[in-house]
């Protein structure tokens, strides 16, 4: 019996075929060759610093190890650059010189021009479509954090450039690390094999206490700088927490249900985190997502301090239930299964998968997938913000754009907090 070819087998056996396009694709080379992968990091906050660490660890964990160097950094603020350099200066793969450390709104362009092969995009999500498009134009492989946009206009841009990336054979992986986490992959395989029967319902939760406290406004700081510094609390930068965080859980629903919802009805508001320094985002949402075949998903997310948390998903099937949370998945019903507690850190695994796919000349491209999951979260947000039932087609074709028309440092009034039924 012939075994289906794995990706690795395909690359081995198909070397003659692959050779034809090797020349046009950065970093594709036969195993054993030792071409350096130069990495630039755009957005040096907590996640950017974490992703820098993760990609370096991923390079070292690959067999053979990838010859990777982090060579350039870009951030809106010098403090982000300094913090990243301080954190990683001891690491062998971290080789950022003063000349390759860029500050300001156009730092991303300079990073793209600094001779990098791959960029990590970890700025506030509002910038992601612009930075992603520029990276693909410049022919770079991309690891971009989730979510990849904050509005439908941005989502469509990511979809468009995701297709261009595919044409250019560029690797695109996103920070929905559950897609690269062993226990999730095994659970999904079992679900696909019928372990819980037909999936008839789902639930997705991100109930937490919120994120970091806002930074005080510095004397003379302009609105845009202040908002970027406190990006979580502004829709045009963050997309609200349903988009910024809950996208993880929504993405798991899309994954399991092999598609996106057709319709969303929601509630939400700002009941606990109400002080003005928390900008204009809400602190809770609950969405009824209707997928094809009348499968409904309960989505609930909240940033309520001093309340119990729950970040998890559940899939309900005709023969059992699957429960999942980072590091632990299980199935109960006709089949009983518990995931192996031993697994690689998925934040490293996702970079390994990207690097390996590039090495093998079959670059992963998750752009469409994460663009859709991002749009699902946006659809839930807009259903709550407006009180309307929002259809997929409506949100996919929407002209909603939250980015200021002209992005430059200076005054930027904060839009009012959304009130359902009232145009903003």
């Amino acid at each position: 019996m012939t075994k289906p070819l794995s990706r690795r087998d395909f690359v081995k056996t198909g070397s003659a075929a692959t050779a034809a396009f090797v020349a046009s694709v950065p970093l594709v080379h036969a195993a054993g060759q030792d071409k350096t992968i130069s990495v630039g990091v755009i957005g040096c906050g907590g996640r950017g610093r974490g992703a820098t660490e993760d990609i370096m660890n991923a390079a070292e964990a690959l067999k053979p190890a990838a010859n990777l160097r982090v060579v350039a950094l870009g951030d809106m603020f010098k403090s982000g650059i300094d913090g990243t350099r301080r954190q990683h200066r001891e690491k062998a793969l971290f080789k950022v010189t003063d000349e390759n450390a860029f500050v300001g709104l156009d730092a991303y362009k300079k990073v793209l021009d600094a001779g990098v092969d791959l960029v990590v995009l970890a700025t506030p999500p509002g910038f992601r479509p612009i930075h992603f498009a520029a990276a693909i134009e410049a022919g770079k492989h991309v690891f971009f954090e989730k979510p990849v946009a904050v509005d439908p206009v941005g989502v469509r841009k990511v979809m468009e450039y995701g297709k261009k990336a595919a044409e250019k054979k560029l690797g695109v992986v996103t920070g929905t690390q559950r897609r690269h986490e062993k226990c999730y992959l095994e659970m999904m395989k079992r679900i696909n094999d019928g372990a819980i029967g037909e999936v008839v319902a789902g639930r997705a939760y991100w109930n937490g206490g919120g994120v970091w406290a806002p930074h005080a406004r510095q004397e003379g700081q302009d609105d845009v700088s202040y908002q970027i510094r406190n990006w979580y609390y502004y829709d045009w930068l963050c997309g609200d927490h349903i988009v910024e965080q809950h996208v993880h859980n929504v993405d798991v629903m899309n994954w399991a249900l092999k598609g996106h919802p057709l319709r969303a009805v929601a509630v939400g508001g700002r009941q606990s985190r109400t002080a003005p320094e928390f900008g204009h985002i809400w602190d809770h949402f609950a969405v009824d997502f209707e997928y094809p075949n009348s499968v409904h998903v309960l989505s609930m997310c909240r940033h309520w301090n001093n309340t119990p948390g729950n970040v998890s998903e559940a899939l309900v099937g005709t023969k059992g239930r699957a429960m999942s949370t980072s590091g632990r998945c299980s199935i109960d019903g006709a089949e009983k299964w518990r995931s192996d507690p031993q697994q690689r850190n998925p934040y490293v695994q996702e970079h390994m998968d990207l690097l390996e796919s590039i090495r093998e000349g079959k670059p992963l491209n998750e752009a469409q997938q994460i663009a859709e999951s991002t749009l699902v979260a946006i659809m839930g947000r807009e259903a709550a913000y407006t009180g309307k039932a929002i259809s997929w087609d409506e949100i996919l074709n929407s002209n909603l754009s939250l980015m200021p028309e002209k992005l430059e440092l200076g005054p930027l009034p904060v839009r009012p907090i959304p009130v359902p039924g009232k145009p903003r």
Partner: protein
Amino acid sequence: MKNSQNEPTLKVGLIGCGGRGRGALDNVLDAAPNVQVTALADMFPDRIALARKNLTAKPGFKVTDENCFTGFDAYKRLLDSGVDYVAMCQPPGFRPLHFEAAVEAGKHCFLEKPVAVDPVGCRRVIAAGEKAKEKKLGVIPGTQSRHSRRFIETVKRIHDGQIGEVLEGYIFFNTGYLWEYERKPEQSDMEWQIRNWYYFDWLSGDHIVEQHVHQIDATDWVMKSHPIQAVAVGGRQMRVEPLYGNIYDHFAVDFEYPGGAHVFSMCRQWKGQGVGGFIAAWYVGSKGTAYLHHPSKEKAGSITGQNPWKYEGDETPSTVQEHRDLIESIRAGKPINEARRIAETTLTSILGREAAYTGKVVKWDELMKSDLDLSPAKYEFGPNPVRPVRVPGKNA
């Protein structure tokens, strides 16, 4: 109905002459022969006058001036006026107190839903319900879906296994605003709150308890149990003016039932451009889906899946049927007593509310033992400060 023409006349008194009270009288008079309405009680004379005006042409409406009572103790005088059957349509916060007195006085009771606004009230209703049982009094709540043929037939099929094991449920009560009552300068806190009762926790229990209890009650019926626990979100995002007291304008609750089934509840009172309403209740099982409520006529009262079925019977107004069922049971000497059931499903609604108000995972059994009591310090016209709107995670 057998021989009911020969039954002794059933004398009905109404406590609470607002919109629902007037409707209930209409319903009870339509429900059975030999029924008379003989007494009215309300906090305010103008409400009594309106009820008399609206119902005066109705045969069976036999209310004299002497049998109209107002004020905080109007209910007591009504219970002393020779009625057999009391329809309780006052704001829910008063229900436990009035129900206790009615049972004490030996009256059959129609209790509008919900029957309480807090766990202490639920326990009082359960205790009074037990006394009613000893006294062979009929007690029925206004959760009319339990008396709707469409609901009864659908739930029967769920219980017969037509959709297999019930795995997940979905209940929605998304509506617009209701009414509101602006304060007049001469009105005390208490008078204004009672007139504008919907918007104060101690009177209405919030809209998840006051309205959504219908579907929550139906869900406990379908699931043959109350939930184990609830996790929720909720808030006040639109209806924020002092006119709207201290209740929320939206909730979403994840109720967990024994065996692992979850029910997703969403209710909101939102209005404005494009804001859509949605009232529905359906349950997904291992062999199909049963729809109790749905805006689509094809779906309401139907089962899809392995055992497709559609309710094709009539739609008797269940607000009449519930009185008919109670009166028949009384006349047959086997009075229905559903006090415990409605107190328990009221508590399920309160569970959802408290899960949102506090942000906690609230367990049904613990809530049933809770000392939470929203009733005011004194039942008299005068000052009654409004509790602040609840903030999850604070003072929880």
